[in-house]
């Protein structure tokens, strides 16, 4: 085949600009736009309990909206917004010093370490961490008893569980990591010279922070606020587990309209109003931010006098500082202490989960006073499980020893040797899977065992979908922008800002309909190969948010690189497919890996969509755990969470090595993870 033929073919087959984004477009239309549109339609219908799909669409009316507009709904709504707003501000205030320390005050090594400690808790099951808060907060718990003994609180003990306060604490805890990461990325990107220049010109620490650092970090702060505020508004898991009747949030109210009350129309109306309210509160927030920055940036009398005062004060302070040579700079110490406390806060529930997996009693949240491995034995087939651990250890140990030997005796580059650890891990994973009936063999208790397996299968499948369609869409957005970009980005943005509960009900009510369609409906009705309909639904449900995240990460990675390499490849006669494979793909590989990792973690932990769409054979760990919270949670759920955590950390380690191998620093890894 000569080059000229290739050129001709290429011209003839020239696809529309958005060709690569087509899979995404179809996916989002089928599983986001249409289902959400149905919710809007349902919201004008009436309840009909006699039908399988309990909606009567023959008489459309606005009656549901009238019903929603009652006093109690607004009260719950207001308390949801209040909890979310306070939690977002709380996360910002708690997270900012940590991000500041990691970005400006520590060496590269410490940077990676602090970030790892902040990110790692997010890789433990969200639900079990939430449940774990019941342990220190229980009125009869050890902490409460200790406080009573010290006479710091009344004899009735801590009265926080089943109140909005418990929800408030846990929500701040659950979303803190999602705030710190984008904050760090934003701060880390600030050119140090800007800050130095500011100080050289006589600005003090405070005026540098408010005048230079904060404005430059603006986009990161906004990203962090969005990443925390929106999911909080739709969160119903935290409120269900800790909130009782008083800590009710709008998410659980909507969910109960769909599952308990079977009143889809009313639930739909609530959901529509909710997304409207979330969007408008974001607009209000944006307006406030804009107003404040406008006032600061423009020479109004107020801002001028403020700036002058700050400047004078800092001059005074810096002169005073120069005067006393012995004055110790306490800022780093304060930051370190704060960061240590935050990390302790992040790890307390995880330590409790590990501890309580060794509880001898019969309830996860209640420490019986007798430690024991009883529940580990209950969950695992001892012999098979130990054999797996031993095989893992032996294979990884051989690889690590081999690496040491090879690096000393031979000239194999250190970089390729870095593969030894993760490679061995992967090999051990395959070997063990083959020997244990795909890991079924290690569990005695199918309830938790299968849930863990299903979680991995669901998260893996959804991640593959997300990486493929998100990757293509990201490339297409960066390389072939056009009018379509605006519409597509609007859809992606909507997917990111729609509270998950809304997607969940939209999909849960859409699947029974789509299952009746020929061909498209088949996988949802009858399953596909060894995967049942529920698993297919999980893949779809979990892939929506994940693919939007991958799209943004890939687009951001490519936006920084111009197209000359691909053009050069084309000039040298490469087909578009070949140019893509050999040029574009390597360029975006680290973005795909990072996006994939983030997707995997998000999907593994997905509770809201999964609960509403999963079926019997596809129950994932979070779904099963939500079921278990309806009665006494047995300690083997803690055991399962510890296992899940360990395996996820293994995957995280693998990916970090991959990223490091491609030469990324911890700042870059964090930046990719945060989607910048």
């Amino acid at each position, binding site marked *: 085949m000569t080059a000229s033929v290739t050129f001709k073919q290429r011209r003839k087959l020239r696809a529309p600009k958005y060709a690569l984004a087509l899979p995404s477009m179809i996916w989002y239309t089928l599983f986001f736009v249409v289902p959400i549109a149905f919710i809007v339609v349902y919201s004008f219908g009436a309840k009909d309990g006699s039908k399988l799909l309990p909606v009567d669409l023959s008489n459309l009316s606005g009656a549901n909206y009238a019903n929603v507009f009652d006093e*109690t709904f607004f009260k719950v709504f207001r308390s949801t917004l209040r909890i979310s707003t306070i939690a977002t501000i709380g996360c910002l205030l708690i997270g900012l010093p940590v991000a500041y320390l990691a970005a400006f005050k520590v060496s590269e090594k410490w940077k990676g370490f602090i970030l790892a400690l902040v990110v790692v808790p997010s890789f433990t099951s969200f639900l079990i961490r939430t449940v774990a808060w019941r342990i220190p907060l229980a009125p009869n718990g050890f902490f409460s008893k200790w406080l009573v003994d010290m006479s710091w609180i009344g004899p009735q003990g801590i009265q926080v569980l*089943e109140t909005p306060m418990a929800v408030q604490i846990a929500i701040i805890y659950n979303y803190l990591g999602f705030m710190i990461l984008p904050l760090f990325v934003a701060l880390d990107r600030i050119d140090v010279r800007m800050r130095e220049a500011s100080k050289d010109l006589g600005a003090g620490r405070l005026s540098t922070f408010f005048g230079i650092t904060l404005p430059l970090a603006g986009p990161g702060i906004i990203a962090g606020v969005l990443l925390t505020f929106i999911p909080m508004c739709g969160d119903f898991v935290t409120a269900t587990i800790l909130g009782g*009747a008083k800590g009710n949030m709008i998410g659980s109210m909507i969910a109960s309209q769909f*599952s*308990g009350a079977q009143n889809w129309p009313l639930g739909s109306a609530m959901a529509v109003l909710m997304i409207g309210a979330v969007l408008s509160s974001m607009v209000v927030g944006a307006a406030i931010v804009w107003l404040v920055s406008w006032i600061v940036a423009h020479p109004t009398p107020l801002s001028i006098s403020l700036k002058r005062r700050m400047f004078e004060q800092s001059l005074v302070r810096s002169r005073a500082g120069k005067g006393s040579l012995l004055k110790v700079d306490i800022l780093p110490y304060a930051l370190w202490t704060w960061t240590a406390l935050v990390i302790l806060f992040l790890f307390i529930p995880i330590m409790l989960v590990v501890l309580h997996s060794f509880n001898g009693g019969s309830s996860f949240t209640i420490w019986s006073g007798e430690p024991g491995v009883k529940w580990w034995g209950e969950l695992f087939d001892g012999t098979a499980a130990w054999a797996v651990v031993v095989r893992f250890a032996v294979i990884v140990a051989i690889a690590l020893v081999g690496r040491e030997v090879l690096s000393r005796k031979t000239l194999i580059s250190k970089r390729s040797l870095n593969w030894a650890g993760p490679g061995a891990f992967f090999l051990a994973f395959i070997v063990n899977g083959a020997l244990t009936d795909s890991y079924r063999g290690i569990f005695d*208790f199918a309830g938790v065992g299968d849930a863990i397996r299903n979680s991995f299968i669901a998260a893996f499948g959804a991640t593959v979908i997300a990486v493929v369609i998100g990757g293509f869409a990201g490339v297409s957005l960066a390389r072939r922008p056009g009018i379509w970009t605006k519409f597509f980005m609007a859809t992606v943005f909507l997917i990111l800002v729609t509270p998950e509960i809304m997607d969940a009900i939209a999909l849960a009510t859409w699947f029974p309909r789509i299952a009746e369609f020929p061909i498209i409906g088949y996988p949802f009705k009858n399953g596909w190969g060894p995967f049942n309909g529920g698993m297919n639904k999980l893949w779809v449900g979990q892939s929506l948010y994940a693919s939007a995240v991958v799209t943004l990460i890939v687009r951001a990675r490519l936006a920084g690189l111009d197209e000359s390499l691909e053009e050069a490849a084309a000039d040298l006669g490469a087909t578009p497919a070949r140019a893509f494979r050999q040029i574009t793909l390597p360029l975006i590989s680290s973005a795909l890996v990072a996006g994939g990792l983030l997707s995997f973690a998000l999907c593994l932990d997905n509770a809201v969509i999964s609960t509403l769409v999963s*079926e019997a054979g596809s129950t994932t760990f979070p779904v099963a755990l939500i079921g278990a919270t309806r009665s*006494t949670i047995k300690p083997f759920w803690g055991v399962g969470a510890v296992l899940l955590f360990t395996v996820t950390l293994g995957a995280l380690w693998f990916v970090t090595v991959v990223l490091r191998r491609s030469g990324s620093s911890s700042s870059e890894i964090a930046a990719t993870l945060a989607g910048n």
Partner: protein
Amino acid sequence: MTQELRILAPDSFREKLNRRAFIKAGTATAGMAVVLMACGGSDSSSPDTTAAGVAGEASGDWSRVINQASGTLAMYTWGDYDDPELVGALAESSLGVKMKVDYFPSNEDLITKLSAGGGTSSGFDIVVPTGPYIVQMVEKGLIQKFDKTLLPNMVNVDPAFLGQAWDKDNEYSVCKNWGTTGFFYDTTKITKELNTWQDFLDACMGEASGQCAVIDAPPNFVGPYFWANGIDWNTEDKASIDAAEDFLVNKLAPHIKAFDSYPSSKLAEGAYSLAMAWNGDARQAYSRIEDAGGTPENWRWVLGAPDTELFMDTFCVAAGAPNAEAAHAWINWILIPENSIKDLEYHGYNTGLKNMEGLISELAPDLVKGDMIFFSDEQVKTMHTQVLNSSIDRFVDILNKAKAKAGA
């Protein structure tokens, strides 16, 4: 139909239950679980034909047919409602099926989940609805007819619990167990003695305000108001229901701490001082409180009065069950007296087999808190089954409004 129920426990039996017996059996049960685990593991290669789990075998004429099955079996049921052995290792060793159990909080949630699968692909094999809901589930095509040739052990069930109004010929369902509703309170926090639903409601709005929990299922939530006021629980009278709504939503709801159908472990955490509870869950609460280092003697269980609920939960096979054969095999297996009594000992509800009195004295002589499982004739006369009529939509609505109000 309530009149058909017979006295199920002799008075002498109840006297045996004192604190010592409770503690002894409490630890014995825990110990036994571990031993049985070991048995289940070692025997898994050769399925035992006798149902292990309780001491010995019941005398008398019992059907003990065991049909082997294979594959996995998915059950969708209420929380803490089955002995973990019987839905775990024992089922695997005796029947050859791996079981998976998921939980739902109310019949309405069960129906929604099954409907979402289009009635054919929910993936569940065995589901456990409460009797009155069976009519609706049959209409919607959510459950399938039994193959009774696979359920020979059904003869073990007391005829009093067969042929109920919702399924006259037991074509779709068989009794899992029946139970009732009452409440549970901490006598150190609530000093007044509570005996009736009116006492419960008063305490909830008084001494225990902000410390009381109610069951999170529509008919149960509205029940206490009707029972306390001598109104028929199954009323369709609009004025009565309006009055119930006004009381429950506007007066009671602001005092409620949680809507919680299974308060046992949260009671042990110290979360509530007063909780409405089903008898079996309240019985489990005693051992949870013991576990948490609390003092069970401080807690008192009261059967709802003057009237209260009688519910019967049933085993059904879901429509389109992926493993209907195993579903039948398991249901048949659980009706073997030794299994049934083992289950009873765990969940604390009467499983409705024939000659229950004899079975208990032979198989579970150390049964703890039997007075929370078996009730006298007079007590049973005060219990009423729910009839699923037009009022259920209102009840659902009342519960939702109360939730919104309580959270506001």
